[in-house]
């Protein structure tokens, strides 16, 4: 059995919002209805009070009016009943008086008002009987008038009774009014308090609902952030929340799992690639050494030095410089394939540039941009010359003029960035992929002075830096080629 809190937690976000809004609307509507009802009820009571006063007051007025009408009837008429307006008015007044006295009796709540209204009723009845006797009497006008005077005295007593009733009603009304005021004050306090409580409860609900929505989202966000930064310490996100969040969490879990698996596979592949590159590198090294042994490098190197001496004795400075450049490349090639100082690589590039400058003259310009202190950084041997050769052979030889090869070296945080840039004919994408995918045996080797292809450089740089982006080659047809090496300084 799920607990209520868990059940609430599992309600969907939409469900929570609907539940909350409905509850708020219903509570506000009910409280409003209650307070309106209270207000109208108080207003009705007040109206009834006023109506009572008015009725008692009307009773007195109508009584006087009826007496005056009857007085006119007695003094003004010839005593005949028929077609006499004043008598008719008197009778109407008496009907109204009877009707009012009934209403007043009915609305009387206290014993005092009931007794007083009964007294008024009885005395009015007596008064009415006296008047009726006068009307029915066959006496003379003067005798009737005398009887009327007696009845009038009675009516004055009735007025006194009515006044007493009014006073009683007023004092009761005053008490009732004070009660009403107190009730209205209570209603106001209850109203304000309930509004306040409702507001606080609503705020609490809003806080709780927003928390129940945002907390899981925060968790999801943190989890997603961890996944995006490659932190897979917590592989599984445990979430007991609303339906939508649970779906998101489960999807995110699956996604994280898939990414983790993919990264694991990728790492495994990368390790295998590195292993394969290492084997390939060892093979290439063996091939390189075999190649070196076939060309009797020491013999050639010594012979070149001998020729350089001759040319020096003969004063052929340019020839001497050229031979020395070629000789220094030979000597460098004899050293093996361990890592070297960048300055040594640059010296060989300068020797290579000297030879190519003698060959191409103004057709190709060579340029090296490197801060002198960077020369002390170690780099794998033979990474620059094959790239420069590639730029000359594939990029600039087919170009008739204004060729340029620039080697640009700079630091970038903990890495050494080496760029070999040429403005040659460029290589189209298909050829580029083919060039980078070629094995050492299948490389077209025209102009090659090292026996090391561009792919060999790529593999060795990858092996050295263990970063996939450590060798990037970009080329555009008729614009040129840029090869970027990213090598760790330490």
């Amino acid at each position, binding site marked *: 059995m799920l607990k209520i809190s868990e059940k609430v937690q599992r309600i969907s976000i939409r469900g929570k919002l609907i539940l909350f809004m409905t509850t708020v609307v219903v509570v506000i509507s009910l409280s409003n209805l209650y307070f309106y009802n209270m207000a109208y009820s108080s207003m009705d009571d007040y109206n009834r009070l006023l109506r009572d006063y008015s009725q008692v007051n009307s009773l007195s007025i109508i009584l006087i009016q009826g007496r005056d009408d009857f007085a006119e009837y007695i003094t003004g008429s010839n005593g005949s009943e028929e077609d006499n307006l004043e008598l008719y008015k008197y009778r109407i007044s008496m009907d109204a008086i009877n009707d009012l006295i009934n209403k007043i009796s009915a609305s009387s709540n206290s014993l005092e008002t009931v007794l007083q209204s009964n007294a008024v009723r009885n005395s009015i009845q007596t008064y009415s009987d006296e008047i009726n006797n006068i009307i029915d009497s066959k006496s003379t006008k003067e005798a009737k008038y005398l009887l009327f005077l007696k009845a009038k005295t009675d009516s004055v007593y009735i007025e006194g009774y009515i006044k007493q009733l009014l006073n009683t009603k007023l004092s009761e009304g005053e008490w009732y009014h004070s009660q009403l005021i107190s009730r209205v004050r209570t209603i106001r306090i209850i109203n304000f308090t309930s509004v306040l409580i409702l507001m606080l409860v609503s705020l609490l609900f809003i806080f709780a609902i927003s928390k129940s929505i945002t907390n899981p989202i925060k968790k999801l966000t943190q989890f997603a952030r961890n996944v995006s930064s490659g932190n897979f310490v917590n592989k599984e996100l445990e979430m007991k929340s609303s339906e939508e969040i649970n779906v998101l969490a489960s999807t995110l879990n699956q996604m994280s799992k898939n990414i983790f698996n993919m990264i694991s596979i990728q790492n495994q592949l990368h390790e295998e690639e590195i292993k394969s590159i290492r084997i390939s590198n060892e093979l290439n090294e063996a091939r390189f050494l075999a190649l070196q042994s*076939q*060309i009797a490098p020491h013999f050639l190197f010594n012979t070149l030095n001998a*020729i350089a001496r001759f040319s020096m004795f003969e004063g*052929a*400075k340019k020839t001497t410089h*050229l031979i020395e450049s070629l000789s220094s490349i030979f000597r460098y090639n004899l050293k093996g394939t361990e890592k070297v100082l960048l300055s040594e690589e640059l010296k060989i590039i300068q020797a290579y540039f000297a030879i190519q400058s*003698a060959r191409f003259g103004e057709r190709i310009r060579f340029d090296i941009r490197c801060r002198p202190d960077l020369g002390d950084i170690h780099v794998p041997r033979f990474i620059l010359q094959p790239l420069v050769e590639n730029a000359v052979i594939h990029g600039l030889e087919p170009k008739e003029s204004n060729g340029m090869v620039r080697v640009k070296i700079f630091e970038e945080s903990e890495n050494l960035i080496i760029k070999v840039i040429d403005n040659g004919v460029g290589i189209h994408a298909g050829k580029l992929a083919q060039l980078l995918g070629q094995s050492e045996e299948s490389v*077209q*080797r025209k102009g090659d002075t090292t*026996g090391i292809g561009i792919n060999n450089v790529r593999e060795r740089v990858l092996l050295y830096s263990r970063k996939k982006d450590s060798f990037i080659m970009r080329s555009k047809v008729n614009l040129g080629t840029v090869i970027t090496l990213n090598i760790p300084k330490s």
Partner: protein
Amino acid sequence: MRGGDPLDALIEEFISNLNLIHRLSVSENAGKTQKMVQCIDNHIRYKYLRKDEIVKLRTEMLQVDNLINIFRTRFGENLAYEKKVREDIPDPYLPSNTVLALAESALIHGLVPKEGDWRLNIEIDEHEHGLLIRVADNGVGLAPSIMDPSCSCIERKNEIAAVNARLKEYFTNPESGDMEPVSISCSGMYNKVTILLPRSGL
């Protein structure tokens, strides 16, 4: 250019650089340099670019002379070279880099490591079974210790074995069975490598 062979590519590039040096030396009137560069160029071209060809013996001997020139230019008159070739002997075909390889091997591995005077004798004469070529030197390397695998002249032995293999492949008659055209001997102060080219193959 021969396909994608890295050795060929290296050699071609080297030759190209030699040509460049030669042109420059011409423009700077450096006669000896020109001559030397020319010798190196000839040697490299022959040794590497014609390594799989069949050549005439006298062509091969011209390349040996060229190599001797290079060494004499480098080392001066320290090297005494004697060539005895009978005028009337035939000029047979043989795989290139046969006599040249033996001579170069004798010079580099036999004579250069040795102090004192250097002698290299090459003798070509007729034999009852064919043509006899003898390369003899007074250098180091072909003493009995050569059989010791740790001997520093193991490279020379390998080169001689490679020459033997090439000659066997070219001259051996499948019906007559195996033959060893190259033999090594040491007599007195000379190391001698003798080749017997069978008459049937001449």
